[in-house]
């Protein structure tokens, strides 16, 4: 699979749109401390102020500036999403490759554990653990990674198994390359697209999970979160605040997940040549 990744991606309009939106959102999340006009924890403003020059999206029920809150919440989403994806994909990659290369009983046990994890709704596990421990953000990140690596591991394992029998790998082994060398030079680079697709998908699931868990009121209460904003805004719908309070977090969350969905679709289309017609669906 030798595809000029960047070149192909640039030709894929869906991918370019997704990536541009994602970059804008990432940038505003990273720069939140700089661009936020107010401290998101400052509740000294008037309640329920309509949008104005000073408060772009108005203020909420206890006097927080909604726009600043939104930026900081986006930051939480991005941090949570990317960290979970990074940890879960690393575990999945290591488990998948080792299962394929070691084989035997180790392979069987590890993959059956992965299958078993598929049958357990991870949100309920997160709820149970959150209820017991009231954990902080890092603990939640690690917990979610520990129960969502299985899909990555399955994909990586299947791909490694098929790579193992390829001629160029056999050739390098015959010329005396060590397992580690083969892994580093041949297997991991070829697994990269699969890894990237998994990374985007996991980020997406984690972002949704963070918003969902905080919507249910079981996330670390010291962090700003889109889910918490949505949850509080729905309590005051009768005040007609939905345009400036409910819609912004709902819209940001959706746009974030949509951009990730676009990217993962584009990457899948680029790397699965069977899905391509000529040079990708040109939209």
């Amino acid at each position: 699979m030798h595809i000029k990744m960047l070149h192909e991606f640039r030709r894929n309009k869906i991918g370019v749109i997704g990536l541009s939106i994602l970059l804008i959102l990432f940038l505003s999340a990273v720069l939140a401390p700089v661009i936020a006009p107010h401290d998101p924890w400052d509740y000294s403003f008037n309640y329920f102020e309509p949008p104005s020059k000073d408060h772009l999206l108005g203020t909420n029920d206890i006097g927080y500036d909604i726009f600043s809150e939104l930026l900081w919440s986006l930051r939480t989403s991005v941090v949570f999403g990317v960290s979970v994806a990074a940890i879960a994909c690393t575990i999945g990659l290591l488990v998948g490759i080792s299962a394929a290369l070691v084989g035997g009983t180790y392979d069987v046990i590890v993959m059956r554990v992965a299958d078993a994890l598929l049958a357990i709704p991870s949100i309920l596990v997160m709820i149970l653990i959150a209820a017991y421990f009231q954990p902080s953000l890092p603990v939640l990140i690690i917990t979610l990674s520990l129960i969502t690596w299985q899909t990555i591991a399955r994909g990586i394992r299947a791909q490694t198994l098929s790579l193992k029998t390829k001629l160029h790998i056999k050739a390098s082994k015959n010329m005396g390359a060590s397992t580690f060398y083969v892994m580093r030079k041949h297997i991991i680079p070829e697994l990269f697209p699969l890894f990237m697709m998994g990374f985007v998908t996991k980020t997406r699931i984690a972002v949704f999970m963070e918003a969902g868990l905080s919507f249910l009121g079981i996330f670390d209460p010291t962090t700003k979160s889109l889910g918490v904003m949505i949850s509080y805004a729905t309590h005051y719908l009768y005040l007609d605040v939905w345009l400036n309070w409910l819609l912004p977090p709902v819209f940001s969350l959706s746009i974030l997940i949509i951009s990730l969905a676009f990217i993962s679709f584009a990457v899948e289309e680029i790397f699965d040549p069977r899905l391509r017609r000529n040079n990708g669906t040109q939209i």
Partner: protein
Amino acid sequence: MKWNRKAKMVTVYLFTIIFLIFLNFLLPRLLPGDVILAMYSGQEILITEEMYNELVILHGLDKTLYEQFSIYLTQLAHGDLGYSYVFHASTTDLILAALPWTLLLVVTSFILSAIAGIVLGVESSWRRGGKIDKSLLVSMLFVDGVPSLAIGVIFLSVFSLKFGWFPTAGAMTPYSNAEGIAHIKDVLMHLVLPLSTLTLSQIPGDYLMIRNSMMLTIREPFILTARAKGLTERKIKYFHAARNAILPFFTRIGIRLTYVLTGVLFIETIFAYPGLGLLTYEAISNRDLPLIQGILVVSVLLVLLVNIVIDIFYKKIDPRIEYAH
């Protein structure tokens, strides 16, 4: 090492149950501090000395870990999932009362989204690269990105609160005593919004999967044969291509169920629909851990049951399947 499919299935189920027992039995006991206080203390409940002693006996906490475990397994085998001090009812009864509403939502949305997803996916792939395909694809990717949470909140604020077309909460009007057709109409009116949210959140997944698998099927030689025989377009599309393209749909039902149960949790919470999801939310807000544990057990059993049924019937659906790897 050759593992046949049955042994593989059984090991997976075994691991799932071990994991479940770890979460529900071992985890609270591994926590530092008192098990009873960790599990039962909430904001709403005050544990009296009498209750405490009762719970110690119920869980056998004065006995060895091994005996506690056998007590736990016996209770589980009898369908006893514990007692909720928040609702003053047996956890099993609470879950059984909520389950039908959730099943109504899940099963109906599964069927509706499958029909919509298959028809849209087949038509889209047939017109690959055309205007209809492109616009369908983009709009489906778009809908796919909107989380069920967001769809639900928007539906609720627009259709229930703004226009008042549908009720805002519940599965039927309380104390209405309506019977017959009026009752059915009442239930349906309450069902519309949660059901459409859940269905809408599933259609893109079905659509994208069918579209991808159709594209691969269309290239198969038997499609060319069907063409050469002079069959009508519609026949080739649905009876030759789609019939083969929907196979992955069945293998994924079990995995998808876990995602759908996640969606149900938010949708039922938003629309206050009295199923397992709302029960979970109420358990969370009251910190009713035995109830959360019970819901986890029932959800996992539900997913396993569906997996078993699919494993059994899959050979009938797709005779090509190999049972020994």
